């Protein structure tokens, strides 16, 4: 019996309603992912696409796959994405510069072309067997059925994936972990260095940042007795990030020898 692939793939009514409600939404979300400017919004839309996929899986009797989709993708992978966004900065947007002229129109045309071709081809495809559904596969329970396949028929592929995971872990170590070339300074070394340093004034530790009623003071330097700013009172990290406020506005007066003894 030969029927078209579309007939074979037709679902029954409750599932069809679910499909026609969720599918357009997830396609919209997927398109939106590409169009929104901010990376965070893109990540959230991706989460929505993944969750709707999970719902489809569960609707098609693949309960385990649906749960795994939520736990692994929506849970773990999305969290990783968000961590990375945190590190990169929420506000950073992709540079949308085109290196090759007219790349975007060409890409859009090609995408529409191949998409249309696939849709028209699949619409005309015929298949000689029925869709089985998962009811036969799920006879002994969904998870049990999967486990049985994983540990019998596909055990070799399943085992070889461990090589992939080890490679990934090893690669992450190679690219990110650095062996210390110099030995780390101990507290004792640091203390000795302070006393042998040029200025004994810093031996007792660096001054804390300034305290002003007007302002959250971590990014404003402390004031020395003469009213000038103590540059060492600010964390170097803040300085490097350029987050330090100009302390002049908080100073009472300008002293002449301030710049020499920071």
């Amino acid at each position, binding site marked *: 019996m*030969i029927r078209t*692939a579309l007939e074979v793939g037709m679902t029954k009514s409750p599932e069809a309603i679910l499909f026609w409600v969720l599918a357009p939404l997830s396609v919209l979300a997927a398109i939106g992912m590409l169009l929104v400017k901010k990376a965070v919004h893109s990540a959230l839309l991706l989460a929505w696409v993944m969750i709707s996929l999970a719902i489809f899986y569960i609707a098609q009797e693949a309960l385990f796959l649906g749960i795994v989709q939520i736990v692994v993708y929506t849970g773990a992978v999305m969290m990783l994405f968000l961590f990375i966004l945190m590190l990169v900065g929420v506000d950073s947007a992709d540079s949308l510069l085109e290196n090759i002229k007219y790349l975007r129109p060409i890409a859009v045309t090609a995408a529409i072309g191949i998409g249309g071709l*696939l849709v028209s*081809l*699949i619409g*005309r*495809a*015929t*298949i*000689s*067997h029925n869709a*089985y559904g998962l009811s036969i596969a799920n006879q002994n329970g969904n998870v049990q059925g999967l486990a*049985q396949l994983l*540990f*019998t*028929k*596909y*055990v*070799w*592929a399943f085992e*070889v*994936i461990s*090589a*992939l995971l*080890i*490679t*990934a872990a*090893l*690669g992450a*170590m*190679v*690219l*990110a*972990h*650095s*062996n210390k*070339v*110099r030995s780390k300074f101990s507290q004792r070394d640091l203390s000795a260095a302070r006393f042998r340093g040029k200025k004994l004034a810093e031996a007792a530790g660096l001054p804390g940042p300034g305290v002003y009623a007007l302002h959250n003071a971590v990014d404003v330097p402390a004031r020395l007795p003469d009213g000038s700013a103590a540059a060492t009172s600010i964390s170097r990290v803040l300085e490097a990030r350029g987050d330090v406020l100009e302390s002049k506005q908080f100073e009472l007066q300008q002293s002449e020898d301030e710049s020499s003894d920071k």
Partner: protein
Amino acid sequence: MLTTPSFEYLLLSPMLIILAAAVIGVLAEAFLDRNHLPVIQLFISVGAILLALIQIYRIKSSSSTSAAIGSVVIDKATIYLQGTILIIGLLALLLISDQEQFVAQASAIPGSREEQESTSKGSIQTEIYPLLSFALAGMMLFTCASDLITLFVALEVFSLPLYLLAGLSRRRRLLSQEAALKYFLLGAYSSAFFLFGAAFLYGISGSVYLVDISSAVSGGYGNDVFVLIGLIFISVGLLFKISAVPFHAWTPDVYQGAPTSVTAFMAAATKVAAFGAILRIFYVVFSPIANQWRPIISVIAIITMVFGSAVAIAQRDVKRMLAYSSIAHAGFILTAVLALNKSGLSAALFYLTTYGLSTLAAFGIITLIRDATGEVTDLNKWAGLGKKSPLIAGSFAFLLLSFAGIPLTSGFIGKFAIFSAAYETGNIAVVVFGVLSSALAAFFYIRVILLMFVAQSQNDSISIAIPSVKSRIAIGATTAATVILGLFPSLLLNITQSFSIFIK
């Protein structure tokens, strides 16, 4: 209910040995003294490859072929391909173990003080040895996987280490890292195509095993839209790996950016593994519908040959030139896929071996041509190399002649075997284009030879490094193989003929 799966451990043993060596290498990395690691890692890797070669020799006439519950087929062609991959891996390992092309500390930012300190301290990333072993194991599995899932897993297992290795060059690190990232992104993209195609083939046959797909394909139920979509998308994934046009864009950048010894390994071994899988898929699964795909693959083979040869002419960098030449060679070997007969398979096996060995030798020689800043790959600076070192320049010239397919070299025998096999099955157009683009390719190979021997050298800044014993063995053995297989091709042709059997 559950029966214990029966593995044929003996048939799997070459792969298992290499995988075990990789895992032991990772453990050694974690627990052993850093100062002794380079020697230990080299010992583990070389030892494992030799053991695996012995195992391959032992199973070469084994009667059973199916292993790992039907996921793996160890037939004659597989044994030949696995042996070739291991030999190429061994020789590449000798090149790679001259660590000075590799970055001292991959995590250090390029140009930073940490980088300078670790370089001057002489620290090295010995992780490249386990990574190479993983890549080897993946390639071996890729040639023998007989279901689509195993094929996909093997594809990833050998690709991932290569992405990493490509980014570990010591000099011009940003270029190297860019190459690695490009390779990774495009590779992931092509894997997605492969999976998409695999899904359609599963849809038509209800099975992921190549045998079942083959019978579903030849069964002729319904129309074959799904089969064709599956075939095309799976081909995209595989053609990417052999860098056939139009899926070649990564090749020049990655060949140029990766450390030269890794490029040598990649160029030689990846081709063998990927063509092993392509040959198996087209010979075993899709041969019943050859009339459907022959036109597509013919066109791809023709544009790959012509494009690779034509663009190589314009290259000013020797690594990029060899990259385009490898694209052209992919086209030549694709011609053997079109032949779909035993002589075509045998010719492909011969060509893969000789091309792999010559490529190793050529890239090995490139590592020796240096100036104060490291390797010199700019062709203009190669002028006058023939006067400086006739032996090195002479060997390189000979290898180029072999790539060009001049008689008395192994490249000629390979091309002749492939084109005559394709001619037998009536692919005249492909043969004509193949011969024409060979002539075109000869032009730029000979231009490089003229440059080395005739042109006046403009500066004396380049020098030829004295190779270490390991490099000497690798370059010497591969060059010698190119000479010997050119003069006495029947030594290898007899072997490839008896090993060119695919079993479903």
